[in-house]
């Protein structure tokens, strides 16, 4: 039977049972408003659902009943006749429902007699007594009283199936019961406790060799495991439950959009935890809507493109390890990268040059940015710009990932990977600095014993790495990350961990065993520590922290980021892309090959050495009627004295700079995995490119060197004072990261470490044009600062840009109230510059 229909029957059956009890009272007190409205609500619900399920007979009947009861609610007195009429209507509803249960469609029948009388009464006409059916007996509590006198001629016709129906109804009722989700959750928690206690007991018995407890405990252990599995099962639901509404949505959409769309579903029976299912439902629906709305073309377009007239959206689900993989694919036009680019520019997510530097896959990833929607007009389906970012964050919340593949003209596919369950996971228990920690097994690829022999921890300057087969694995010492002491030692275990597409090694002092752990939420006082995702109780009763590999990976990123702080071009978060990139490999200075992503390079030029002019110790070359600064990768790279000098030309926002190199070696296609962060300025890090360890050059380091100068010249030419920005952030890290960035964009920057410091600076007489402030600061936060500034003469009109790690609509609302002009996420460096430009332009206009 159709799942929707079954739900409808169960639900309605329950409501009817409930109302049955009240019906008796209704007979006695026909004017009790409470009872009346209960029955009214039931009838109304049935009517609504019937329309949806195309049960026309029920719909007509309940509609008539609803009209009459509406009149009663409006104050029409309820007569004994009316009660009888309503009772017989409800009985009819029941008999139809029973019919549906056996036949799986509405039984044939005619209800015009009842509908006519209901209508007449609603119009206030006198219903002749003799036409009334004999009054219904008080229905039996079971509500299955099919032989009630109310069963009239129409029902008699359907009598045979109804008898069978009553048996089937009993069967269905016995087959499944409704249990509140709370009860299941409670069971789950209790079982979790039981598992822990069992683990503790096993631990104790392990220490006493010849214990009498051994055998019964083994039995207990098995039973517990079975129980755990059973309870887990009660929480498992086929993913098809989350898909139920999709065919209908797609059908409606195709009608509305004038498209012909077919929805294929595979693997609907794949089961997953209901908690996960709930969380994944909305993202799925959204993705399918998107496919229908954006992906699939209109029939004419499809035919023109040589594709079948009707488009197909394919939904597949399958298990893979401890994960479930869901793919939503369409055979539509694919993502429109040109429009995404335009929109990204519009929103200030990237500059033209950034976009030119990105691969198609990277550009597609923009659709996950907050507020991104390429639909030019807002339809009821999509285009409100709420969606893909929410989809991504919802899925990431449950430890999942979303990947996107798109081929122009062929279609797009989203792949969602989510864990099966959130409650119990298998974890590897490790030790570092004398403390134990749990690492979820899901992200552990392998375990390598380091020290001596084959696997030796090597260092590039201070960066530890491990040669593992043919990759260079960046290493992190857990001890150092957790500040439990120096990493130092070269022996220990390397837990090879994968987060997204990033693979790294966590060095720990010892590895114990794997254990099924029950994840307990972290204390609210500890939630701000990104490297932990929860706590758990081990078999021996002690509490340990669960490491969050995502959080650990962040500290890996942070090390790299600190080196690349002036780099305005690199997308730090963009490690998810699996695609290979074209790398330009060249040599400059040392023999070690160096590389830059080819997409960053605007042109390769050979310049006659005669044309290089040296002015003020800086090399310049005339290039396209402009003086272009020429920089060297490092001091070892000499400029050639004669012949031609190969240079790489980089352009950014209409400005160009040249980077002198010794020799261009090759252009290669490879995955760019920067495995070890560089320690020298100008070097992003090291990567294995075609088997060679290669220095990846940080173009962002060189751009400001060339452009700072350029800016000064332009500013003085315009005779305009550079804008001064006051940067307020309590974290020295962010001050150090953002100040050079703002400077590079041509502003003076004054940094202060607190709101109080900011107020002091503002009163000191220095003229500021703009304030950029962090929101979360101790003592006095950004909101308070803005409020204080509003009360001060002279500075009350200064534009304020707020930086926040988390921007919720609530914060934005509050920010608007205190007078923030703009909000920028802390890591959105391009966004910050755009906001500063916009706000300072306003200042100019005002001046």
């Amino acid at each position, binding site marked *: 039977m159709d799942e929707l229909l079954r739900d409808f029957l169960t639900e309605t059956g329950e409501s009817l049972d409930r109302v049955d009890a009240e019906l008796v009272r209704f007979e006695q007190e026909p004017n009790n408003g409470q009872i009346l409205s209960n029955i009214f609500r039931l009838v109304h619900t049935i009517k609504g659902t019937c329309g949806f399920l195309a049960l026309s007979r029920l719909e007509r009947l309940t509609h008539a009943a609803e009209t009459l009861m509406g009149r009663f609610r409006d104050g029409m007195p309820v007569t004994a006749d009316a009660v009888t009429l309503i009772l017989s209507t409800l009985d009819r509803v029941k008999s139809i429902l029973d019919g549906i249960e056996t036949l799986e469609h509405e039984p044939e029948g005619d209800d015009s007699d009842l509908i006519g009388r209901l209508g007449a009464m609603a119009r206030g006409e006198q219903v002749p007594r003799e036409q009334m059916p004999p009054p219904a007996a008080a229905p039996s509590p079971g509500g299955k009283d099919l032989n009630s006198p109310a069963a009239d001629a129409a029902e008699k016709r359907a009598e045979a199936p109804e008898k069978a129906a009553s048996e089937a109804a009993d069967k269905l009722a016995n087959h499944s019961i409704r249990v509140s989700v709370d009860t299941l959750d409670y069971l789950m928690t209790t079982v979790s406790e039981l598992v822990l*206690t069992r683990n503790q007991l096993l631990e104790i018995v392990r220490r006493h060799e010849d214990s009498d407890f051994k055998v019964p405990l083994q039995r207990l252990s098995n039973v517990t495991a079975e129980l755990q599995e059973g309870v887990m099962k009660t929480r498992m639901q086929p993913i098809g439950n989350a898909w139920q509404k999709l065919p209908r949505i797609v059908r409606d959409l195709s009608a509305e959009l004038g498209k012909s769309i077919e929805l294929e579903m595979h693997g609907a029976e794949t089961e997953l935890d209901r908690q996960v299912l709930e969380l994944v439902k909305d993202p799925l629906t959204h993705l399918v809507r998107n496919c229908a709305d954006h992906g699939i073309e209109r029939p004419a377009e499809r035919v023109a493109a040589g594709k079948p007239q009707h488009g197909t959206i394919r939904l597949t689900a399958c298990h893979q390890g401890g994960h479930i993989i869901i793919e939503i694919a369409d055979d539509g036009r694919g993502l429109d990268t040109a429009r995404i680019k335009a929109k990204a520019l519009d929103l200030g997510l990237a500059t033209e040059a950034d976009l030119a530097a990105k691969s198609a896959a990277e550009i597609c990833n923009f659709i996950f940015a907050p507020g991104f929607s390429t639909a030019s007009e807002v339809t009821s389906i999509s285009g409100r710009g709420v969606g893909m970012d929410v989809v991504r964050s919802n899925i990431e919340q449950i430890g999942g990932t979303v990947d996107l593949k798109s081929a122009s003209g062929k279609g797009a596919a989203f792949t969602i990977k989510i864990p099966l369950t959130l409650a119990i996971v298998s974890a590897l228990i490790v030790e570092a600095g004398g403390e134990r920690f749990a690492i979820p097994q899901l992200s552990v690829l392998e375990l390598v014993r380091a020290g001596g022999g084959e696997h030796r921890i090597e260092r590039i300057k201070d960066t530890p790495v491990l040669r593992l087969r043919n990759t260079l694995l960046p290493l992190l010492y857990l001890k150092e990350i957790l500040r439990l002491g120096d990493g130092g030692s070269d022996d220990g275990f390397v837990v090879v961990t994968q987060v997204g597409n990033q693979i790294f090694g966590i060095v720990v002092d010892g590895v114990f065993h794997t254990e099924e752990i029950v994840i307990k939420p972290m*204390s*609210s006082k*500890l939630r701000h520590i990104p490297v932990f995702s929860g706590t758990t109780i081990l078999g021996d*009763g002690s*509490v340990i*922290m669960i490491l969050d590999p995502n959080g650990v990976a962040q500290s890996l990123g942070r090390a790299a980021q600190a080196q690349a702080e002036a780099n305005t071009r690199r997308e730090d978060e963009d490690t998810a892309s699996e695609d290979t990139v074209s790398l330009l490999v060249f040599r400059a200075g040392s023999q070690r090959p160096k590389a830059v992503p080819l997409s960053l390079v605007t042109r390769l030029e050979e310049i006659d050495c005669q044309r290089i002019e040296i002015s003020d110790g800086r090399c310049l070359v005339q290039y396209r009627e402009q003086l272009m600064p020429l920089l060297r990768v490092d001091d070892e790279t000499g400029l050639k004295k004669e012949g031609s000098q190969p240079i790489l030309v980089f352009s950014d926002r209409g400005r160009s700079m040249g980077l002198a190199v010794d020799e261009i070696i090759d252009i290669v296609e490879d995955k760019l995995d920067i495995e070890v962060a560089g320690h020298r300025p100008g070097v992003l890090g090291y990567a294995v490119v075609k088997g060679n360890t290669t220095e990846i050059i940080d173009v962002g380091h060189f751009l400001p060197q060339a452009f700072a100068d350029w800016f000064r010249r332009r500013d003085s030419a315009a005779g305009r004072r550079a804008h001064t920005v006051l940067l307020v952030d309590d974290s020295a890290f962010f001050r150090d990261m953002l100040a050079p960035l703002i400077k590079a964009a041509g502003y003076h920057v004054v940094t202060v470490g607190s709101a109080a410091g900011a107020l002091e600076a503002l009163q000191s007489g220095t003229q500021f044009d703009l304030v950029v402030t962090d929101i*979360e600061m101790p003592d006095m936060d950004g909101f308070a600062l803005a409020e204080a500034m509003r009360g001060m003469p002279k500075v009350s009109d200064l534009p304020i840009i707020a930086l926040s790690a988390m921007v919720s609509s609530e914060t934005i609302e509050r920010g608007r109230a205190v007078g923030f002009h703009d909000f920028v996420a802390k890591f959105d460096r391009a966004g910050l510059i755009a906001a500063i430009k916009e706000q300072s332009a306003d200042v100019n206009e005002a001046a």
Partner: protein
Amino acid sequence: MNDNAKLSEYVTFTTAGQLFGLPIGRVQDVFKPSRITRVPLAGPEIAGVLNLRGRIVTAIRLSNRLDLESTDGDNPQKNPPMAIGIECGAESFGLLVDVVGEVLKLPEAELEANPINLDRKLARVSDGVFRLDGQLLVVLDVDRVLDFGAEAVAA
């Protein structure tokens, strides 16, 4: 509420030489903390987490939280011997203290406002002071004692 004769019960305890009181309604239990697991990267006021009959309790070093000098001059990281169990939201906390005293019944009318020169950090979490014979009892507001999420994030 303004009934003069109304008595309130307080669980009293000493930490860093100072006598404190907590409304008895907020105190779940008093226990001897054992096997506290340190939490790396947590603030100094977090002593760690521990397992109390299957519940995970976050142990808070009250003296650090209130910026009180440890009287015995011991290592400030050393954990005091007693804990007062408190529930806040759906979570369990244990305030680590030196000595747990008796439960006192005190008339509400005698609760005095904080002296204006009281240390700011202490004043923020204190509901007022009782003048007892020989010493002062500072009444703590549990929720404010535990409300340091924002500070911890900023730190």
